[in-house]
């Protein structure tokens, strides 16, 4: 089956200082740290290019395996996540190479700044995914399951190859996959989000839904 791949872009989604600080490993920021954060955020924002490519795939779940017509993957957790859905929103999102360049630059001359930029980049890509999913759900009058990415739980990273083949990420949004399955630009996400038709509010993607309870970034809420 041919998948229609579309692209979406937006201006800067709302910025959460607290989230960026959490990703930077800095929960209890003093005034100096907060000033550094805002300075880095202003610098980073000039470099951001928010881009998403996406398509809707039909899904047929049998046991632990999800069959998306173009490809299939076996993962107990993804199957559970998509349970009851007949279609899935598959997307690739990136904030572009600019933030990678800044991180590389300050990694060499000011690692403190690099760590902040790293946190900001992580916050930005999450904010982009949230904004995209919200926009999609509202625009199409559907609900979305919490998004689930290759590498989460038991969903193998290898599925990235299929995701990239279907979405044509390099051409659509300039997102590429390395031999070791790393994405470049690094502040990028690919994910499956099950589409539901009961129009309830889209479910939150909070840390509470994650099984990795030992994670140092785990949010308090």
């Amino acid at each position: 089956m041919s998948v229609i791949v579309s692209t979406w872009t937006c201006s800067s989604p709302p910025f959460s200082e607290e989230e960026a600080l959490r990703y930077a490993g800095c929960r209890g920021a003093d005034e100096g740290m907060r000033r550094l954060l805002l300075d880095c955020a202003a610098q980073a924002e000039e470099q951001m290019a928010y881009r998403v490519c996406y398509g809707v795939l039909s899904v047929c779940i049998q046991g632990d395996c999800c069959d998306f017509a173009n490809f299939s993957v076996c993962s107990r957790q993804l199957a559970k996540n998509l349970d009851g859905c007949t279609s899935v929103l598959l997307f690739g999102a990136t904030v572009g190479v600019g933030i990678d360049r800044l991180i590389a630059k300050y990694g060499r001359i000011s690692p403190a700044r690099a760590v902040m930029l790293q946190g900001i980049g992580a916050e930005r890509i999450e904010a982009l995914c949230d904004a995209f999913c919200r926009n999609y759900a509202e625009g199409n009058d559907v609900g979305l399951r919490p998004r689930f990415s290759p590498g989460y739980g038991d969903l193998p990273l290898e599925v990235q190859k299929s995701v990239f083949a279907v979405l044509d990420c390099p051409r659509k949004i300039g997102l590429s996959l390395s031999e070791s399955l790393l994405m470049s630009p690094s502040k990028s996400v690919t994910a499956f989000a099950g589409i539901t038709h009961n129009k309830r509010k889209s479910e939150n993607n909070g840390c509470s839904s994650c099984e990795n309870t030992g994670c140092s970034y785990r949010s308090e809420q």
Partner: protein
Amino acid sequence: MNFRKYLRDHIVFLDGGMGTLLQKRGLQAGEAPERWNLTHREAVIDIQRQYFDAGSNVVCTNTFGANTLHFAEDVLEEIVKAALDNARAARDKSVGAQEKFIALDIGPSGKLLKPLGDLDFEDAVAMFARTVRLGVQYGADLILIETMSDAYETKAALLAAKENSSLPVLVSNAYGEDGKLMTGATPAAMTALLEGMGVDALGANCSLGPKQLCGVVEELLRCASVPVLFKPNAGLPKGVGGETVYDVTDREFAEDVAKLIQKGVRVAGGCCGTTPAHIRMLADLTGGYTPVPLADKGCTVVSSYTHAVTFGQAPVLIGERINPTGKKRFKQALMERDMDYILSEGVRQQEQGADILDVNVGLPDIDEAAMLLDSVCALQSVVDLPLQIDTSDPEAMEAALRRYNGKAMINSVNGKRDSMEAVFPLAHKYGGVIVALTLDENGIPDTAEGRVKIAEKILHTAAQYGIAKKDIIFDTLAMTISADTSAAKVTLAALRRIREELGCHTLLGVSNISFGLPNRDAVNGTFFALALAYGLSGAIMNPYSADMMRTYYTFKALWNLDPNCAEYIGAADSFSISVSQKAEHPSEKVEGQAGSQLQSAIIKGFRERVGILTAELLQTVPPLEIVNREIIPALNTVGEGFENKTVYLPQLLTSAEAAKCAFESIKTFVAAGGKKSAGKGVVVIATVRGDIHDIGKNIVKLLLENYGFDVVDLGKDVPAGKIVETVADLHAPLAGLSALMTTTVPAMEETIRLLREKAPWCKVVVGGAVLTQEYADRIGADKYAKDAMETVRYAQSVIEK
């Protein structure tokens, strides 16, 4: 007919979309369209025949992704051969009466090149070269490199085409809505790069419809001297009833493209979503147009991977600080291959307002070619300014020009025959603006007349190599007035004549004028002002000099180059005092004695303050004592805070960076005394093969250096062999390995295995996002460190016991 000849006098019509039409005939998402050359020949031929019937002069082979990344060598050959056979069959079947050519189509690899991605530049060149050679072998008339969204990959593809064929090459890039490539290059930057390398036509395709790309095309028409190509999508894709539909009709498409043909586009076709109907409409509508004649824009322009810098507008500042001449600390950095020092000089000059950076890393005892190449690549990963490659070694020059991402400045050529014979072929192949010194076998003429004569000779010889006047900038050689007080007048007279009579741009290494005099900045600033008034286009200068920057800003304000004097007003405070004397930040106040002040300033992370306090202390206290009594205790305070979770990572690093400033002051002090500071022991660190993220490793490096270890940083994506070789060469007692992904942990395991074999004495500490104690044990590491402080503690236990 020959394609180049046809292109000179005609508007050339390309074909339209292929992939979207193959999808209509059953090509699946994710399936390789290139295979259809073998499996669905009739479908491919039929589409291509329709394009020729519709009026296309050029039809592209169905080889967009035909390269060795996607196909095995033998399959690739079958595909390219079949693709050319198919296009020829379509041409033979077509009833179209127009001139018809077949272009070997080359699309992007789908990978990002290093340093952003994992594809090496030379590997990319080799990959494209394979496809080019097959295209030549099986009879393509020309090559179309298209849909490239990155400047570096575009250069790799064009270089492969040039090195492996003599066919005409057309290059087209995919610009986004922001008018730039995905990796940031502007149309002006791409024009500089591509024209420098001798492209036959350049342009824009894919990504958007003709209306949205109009601005990009107009910018290309403004900059380019070669024909401009335009091949937009039929608007944007939409899903209608399970099918992808593009929203621009054939008539609207043809009308929009026709407007740009009237403005000067010379090669036109369509990309995604366009059909033979779009091309027929376009050819019918514009077939009678008279092509807009080509005009050489005559711009002297260099570029980086993001932007272009043009000579002849505001004076261009070329920062001279990356150069060991007369700088002990810089020499030491070169001997120690301390790349971070070189990079920080680059970043600082950019912050001070440099437009271009000169890069000279020549020292008698080092491998200049390797060092220059490394420096150019490293600088291009942290600063986006164009570089001026400064070496007298042709081999080093070629290595650097080849890898340079953009159109570089080449420093330098002179009127000597062997100099011109060495430099001009490189400039012709890789592109570049050449700095030409007005001297020759007989030395530097002491009259303006003599220097102008040499300039004429250089221009004449350059033309024989196909190098245009616009790509040469003359340096009429500033010589010190302390030796000959008429020197400045001769230099300036030659400068004016070259600018006015030869119509060429000029630059000077300004600071030479004052050699041997006191308060050199005063002479330099005044000479700079005079030279600007004589028509100087650019200066190789010290951007840290307040006098020079004062002259620069005031000249621009006085010469009507600074609307509302806005830049002058903005910069006025900065050059009222020199950079080194800059007052401390008001918030950087710390109380107490100089010693405890230093500790406190490190803890608070006040970098400038730390530098000043250390310099003060060095007047009276021995360096080692400052390290042991002030710096280390401060670092320990912060480090313990981090371990107790009262200090967070960015705070730890801010202090570490401040401490680094203290060490920098000490190093400069020690280097000035001609000595070398002794470290505690060597630690070799690297991010393993396949992993391209290195922030964690950089943090570890900073902290290890703070604690006095000599860190040899091999970078990221480092093969096991290189790590082992370095450890063995240095007999390093400790190696630190970092990995971010589960997929690269095997590379770490392999490295440890090799280390055990070849360097059994070496302890191995591992860290990184995915690592755990369990992983570390399984792959045989000596130590798993959960963060940088733990690595420091471990290094201390291994090396200092």
